[in-house]
């Protein structure tokens, strides 16, 4: 059952990733990314990380995708990326580069993981994550808030109308 669920979700994730990459239309790409993020959230559920699945849907599919779709609507007028590609030769090089990286990663996964313990019952709910987040990783947590503040100030500065 879990096996079949994983296979379906994995196929969906890879298919939506390919759709994102191969479609030239940016808004289609953003919608494919929503599918991909949703399938990754489902993958978190099969891994027993319910809290992260919720965070994934709220933050990624909610906040980030709205930002992306908004930016695409504002910035890309209709059909771009349809004209003749001036650097088509160079861009075709991305295919062997991507295939080579995939091959290397798969080889590393095959060779380098070592003996794997059977799936242990690790708690993935809010309580387990919060307990660790607010004790051992408290300093990184606080630094994250500083980072978000810095990003917010930076965005306001960048998006401001001309001085």
């Amino acid at each position, binding site marked *: 059952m879990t096996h079949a669920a994983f296979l379906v979700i994995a196929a969906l994730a890879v298919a939506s990733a390919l759709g994102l990459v191969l479609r030239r239309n940016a808004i289609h790409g953003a919608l494919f990314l929503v599918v991909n993020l949703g399938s990754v959230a489902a993958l978190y559920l099969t891994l027993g990380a319910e809290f992260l699945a919720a965070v994934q849907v709220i933050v990624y599919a909610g906040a980030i995708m709205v930002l992306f779709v908004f930016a695409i609507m504002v910035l890309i007028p209709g059909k771009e990326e349809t004209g003749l590609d001036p650097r088509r030769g160079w861009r075709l090089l991305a295919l062997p580069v991507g295939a080579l*990286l995939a091959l290397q990663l798969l080889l590393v996964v095959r060779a380098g993981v070592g003996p794997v313990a059977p799936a242990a019952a690790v708690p993935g709910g809010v309580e387990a994550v919060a307990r660790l987040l607010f004790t051992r990783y408290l300093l990184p947590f606080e630094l994250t808030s500083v980072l978000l503040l810095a990003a917010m100030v930076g965005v306001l500065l960048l998006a401001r109308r001309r001085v």
Partner: protein
Amino acid sequence: MSLYGYLTLAALVFAIGLFGVLTRRNAIGILLGIELMLNAVNINLVAFARFRADVAGLVFTLFTISITVAEVAVGLAIVIAIFRVRRTVEADRLDLLRG
């Protein structure tokens, strides 16, 4: 499902994301590819957290997600700022720094 399944899936998604980053012609498409790659990393973190029985992987995933939010916000703001000056978001035309 074994750890290998998850790692293989993450490797495939990461490579597809790299391909997207290299082939996209507008800056927003490149950012979409980067999102894909970051998601592959998150899959790895959660899978290792599960199979090594260590909640720290889940905490790290939270950190990557929050950093991704900051990255996307700043990235899109930069793209908008560039668009105001150059009236385009095509990466090939943004060659002010080319020698």
